[in-house]
């Protein structure tokens, strides 16, 4: 329905000049085999449709388009060639209007921008538009623009953003506002746990998540199993966690159903699936609202609340609100986190912007007959001669010129090249003649990005010494496990394979003070974006631990509501009551229905 609004808005303004229509690809009536990819909105401007067919062209995406005026329209498509070079572009596609293929093949240009698809004579009001994938290798379409003028829409992101606003005529603020006691942004394990804990204490909670399913890295879309202990929150976390199946296993679907059903069973959790937050406004260091957009339709809602939880993983809410954050590795002396045995790999003498990388998991399976896999010359500069039939956690990519947030699309694409290239190499081996790709994630499974700064910064030393805290609400026994890229030790290694360094620790604790922002007074954080050093993150970044963080802030939020105070006040004024509430969770029986 979105494009109708666009037409009306546009025609009001430009009727006399030309006939134009902007159609966002993600709002197609039927996306066919294309998937909506909202991961890189902040970098390239919008959700887009991705032809993720693992080498087999996907089913056409289809939508009805209403034109007000007949005429000859030029058709522009915002797209990009995701691996430009001396080979055929991997992600090619075409546009079909009313069963007529437009002349130009698309997906050929370097960098996001507009490509000319061809011209079409529109004779009827109702028209059918299709995206025709030609390769199955991740062609991408952000938007389609029909115009009777000769002007090409602007490609540079700055100009495009301004142009889009002009065309769409979208008011600055969302027209719908909703109010809650607590707004949780990010429906990974931490966000879900926060929502449940707060909801159980009677709060009205909004849980905003940009995917159709909950769980983030643990979801059936990314498929990392949950690790760590339950701490005080076994009852809640058992509703959300996974079995210890291999990373990438289809068994993730079973846990997905459990998780989604459990969260949906709370009447006072308003679940906003496929909604992605895009702004947060703080006045005098206090967040007034978070704005979010439906990833396909583009509808917007403003969320008001006295309290917010940033469980976005990337710390977006904190970032937009102006919260202090850190990124990269501290110097070894900053917090005294040396591990002599592993020297610079563990903690460098000088601070730098290196972080643990992102994974894209995948797997293949045996079929009864021989099956071919296309040639993928565009993948070989990354895969080289590496040959594999599945990818576990070691399939991880980080490089110091790439920011895990700003360059996430390039990181994901690098991993796709690694996967397709390695599988193509494996397919050359006779024993893999019947191997077929079963599943390749297109979502980046991040380990580390922004870390919001709280009143306390958790470090390796807290884990090493098993330091106890009066507000120790999260507990863990899992070793601190920091990854590095093996290419740092030997340039012959693939640059997408990592190694883990395990530091054994006693049981350790994370204080509540690491779970709310130092300078944004009503912001909690839970998940990998909690207040920690780079090395400190090595242990508690796994998902039962981050789930404990979520539950802990959910309960804190309930006391904030009860006494109308901010997160810090719970530590300074209500700690006994808070810790009693946390302690009590240990003994709250698990209802049979949730076992």
């Amino acid at each position, binding site marked *: 329905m979105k494009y109708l609004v666009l037409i009306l808005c546009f025609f009001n303004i430009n009727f006399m000049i030309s006939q134009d229509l902007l159609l966002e690809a993600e709002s197609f009536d039927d996306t066919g085999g294309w998937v909506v990819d909202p991961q890189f909105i902040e970098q390239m401007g919008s959700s887009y449709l991705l032809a993720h067919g693992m080498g087999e062209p996907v089913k056409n995406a289809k939508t009805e388009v209403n034109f007000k005026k007949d005429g000859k329209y030029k058709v522009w498509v915002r797209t990009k060639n995701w691996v*430009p070079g001396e080979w055929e572009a991997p992600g090619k596609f075409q546009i079909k209007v009313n069963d007529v293929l437009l002349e130009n093949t698309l997906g050929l240009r*370097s960098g996001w921008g507009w490509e000319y698809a061809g011209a079409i004579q529109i004779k009827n009001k109702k028209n059918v538009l299709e995206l025709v994938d030609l390769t199955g290798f991740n062609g991408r379409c952000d938007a389609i623009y029909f115009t009777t003028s000769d002007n090409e829409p602007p490609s540079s992101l700055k100009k495009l953003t301004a142009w889009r606003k002009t065309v769409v005529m979208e008011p600055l603020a969302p027209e719908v506002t909703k109010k809650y006691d607590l707004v949780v942004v990010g429906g990974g394990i931490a966000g879900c746990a926060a929502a449940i804990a707060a909801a159980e204490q009677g709060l009205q909670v909004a849980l905003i998540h940009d995917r159709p399913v909950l769980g983030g890295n643990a979801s059936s879309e990314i498929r990392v199993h949950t690790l760590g202990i339950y701490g005080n929150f076994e009852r809640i976390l058992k509703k959300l966690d996974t079995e210890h*199946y*291999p990373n990438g296993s289809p068994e993730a679907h079973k846990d997905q159903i459990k998780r989604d059903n459990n969260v949906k069973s709370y009447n006072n959790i308003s679940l906003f699936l496929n909604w992605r937050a895009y702004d947060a406004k703080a006045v005098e260091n206090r967040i007034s609202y978070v704005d979010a957009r439906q990833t396909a339709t583009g509808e917007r809602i403003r969320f008001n609340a006295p309290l917010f939880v940033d469980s976005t993983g990337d710390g977006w809410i904190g970032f937009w609100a102006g919260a202090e954050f850190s990124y990269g590795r501290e110097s070894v002396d900053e917090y005294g986190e040396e591990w002599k045995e592993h*020297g610079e790999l563990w903690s460098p003498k000088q601070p*730098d912007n290196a972080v643990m990388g992102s994974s894209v998991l995948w797997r293949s399976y045996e079929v009864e007959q021989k099956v071919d896999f296309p040639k993928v010359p565009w993948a070989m500069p990354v895969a080289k001669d590496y040959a594999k039939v599945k990818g576990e*956690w070691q399939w991880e990519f980080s490089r110091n*010129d790439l920011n895990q947030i700003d*360059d996430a699309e390039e990181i994901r694409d690098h991993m796709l090249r690694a996967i397709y290239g390695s599988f193509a190499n494996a397919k050359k081996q006779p024993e893999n003649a019947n191997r077929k790709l079963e599943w390749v994630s297109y979502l980046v499974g991040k380990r580390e990005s922004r870390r919001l700064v709280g009143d306390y910064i958790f470090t390796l030393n807290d884990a090493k010494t098993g330091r106890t805290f009066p507000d120790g609400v999260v507990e863990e026994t899992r070793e601190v496990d920091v990854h590095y890229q093996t290419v*740092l030790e030997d340039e012959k290694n693939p640059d997408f394979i990592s190694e883990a360094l395990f530091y054994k620790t006693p049981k350790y604790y994370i204080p509540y003070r690491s779970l709310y922002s130092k300078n944004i007074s009503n912001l909690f954080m839970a998940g990998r974006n909690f207040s920690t050093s780079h090395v400190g993150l090595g242990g508690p970044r796994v998902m039962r631990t981050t789930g404990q963080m979520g539950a802990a802030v959910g309960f804190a939020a309930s006391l904030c509501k009860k006494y109308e105070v901010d997160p810090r006040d719970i530590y300074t004024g209500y700690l006994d009551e808070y810790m009693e509430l946390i302690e009590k969770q240990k003994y709250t029986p698990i209802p049979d229905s949730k076992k």
Partner: protein
Amino acid sequence: MKLIVVNILICGLGFLSTQKLVMNYNGDGQDRGITKKPEYYAMEWQDGLALNNKATPFYIEVEAMGNQNVDMLVTDLQRPVLYTADICTPVCADGECRLMYLTLYWNLLGAYVGFDKVEGQALTKHDHVEFVEQDYEKLHQLLLDDNSILKRRKIDELVSKPKEPQLDGVDAIAGATIAEVKESVVDGALYSCYVAWNIANGPIKAELQKYTASMFDEELKNYMLMSREVDYQMYALNSLRESEYMEHKDRIAQIFRESIPLVRTYIVQNLPKLFWETDSLQIPFWASFAEVDINNRSLLLNHIQKAPVEVLVSLAGNLELMTKNQLKLYLSAIENTVKTNPDINAQLLRFAESGNHTYAYIVTEFLEDLE
């Protein structure tokens, strides 16, 4: 000082920690030595090198077998080169024990670097079949991996059967998989591999490194700095005072060009400020731009604002090597130079118009914005 290795560790009780007792070694090392490269060896060996045993205060105690001395191997001029020990240890599995003989070698930082077989004492597998050449080589590779999965698993965890369902017939344990263990150990000789790894990479490592540190002098520092062993390079670099960077500037630039990314990173991150303030000192590092890895190119580019014009010109010939963000960094640095420098301008045009470079469009947009 003694280091205890007990054979019961393979029954799942694990290592006893290093215990420092009395320094009571009265070794007979001086009569022995080696004149040829160990059969399995990861370091360079200089032709004609002859090394003599020299006693150290260390021994490895193997339960039921007594003390096994650790010697230093030194040149005729008494320069330390390696550490070595003749190991005889029981390997027990399923109630049956046999002896394993190996001569192990460690470098001066205590890292395992190689072994020799003991004559007449071939290693055997569980079924008494003798190791073949590939098995010895695999054992060597395993011992070289100081971060092996054997480090963090007890023996019983390595042999336990997977509880998880077998998905499409492959080993399907998550994280540290049984398959991963199989890949790295000699087939049928898990127990021998486990015992050997824990001796070679056990507490002795830290003790030997400490011992070397206690005798670390200028000569040893220079030896390590000049070495092609990356561990030695890193150790020597770590010991340099700021003033010494100047003294060794040529060698440091050479290491930067030739070593592994990790060592290069240490160099570029720790070069004294003076290097980036002095054209002649920084140019040798920029000269390696095309030869070093992507991460180190990024670290060099962090200093581009202080680079002399000749570096900017030379980098213009290497635009195809730059990643997107590196290119952006470079372009922002030449914004003011490009109009007055025809060489850079010509290189930008060449790159933008070549038609087959991934990021040519970035240069095209940059040139358009300049107009």
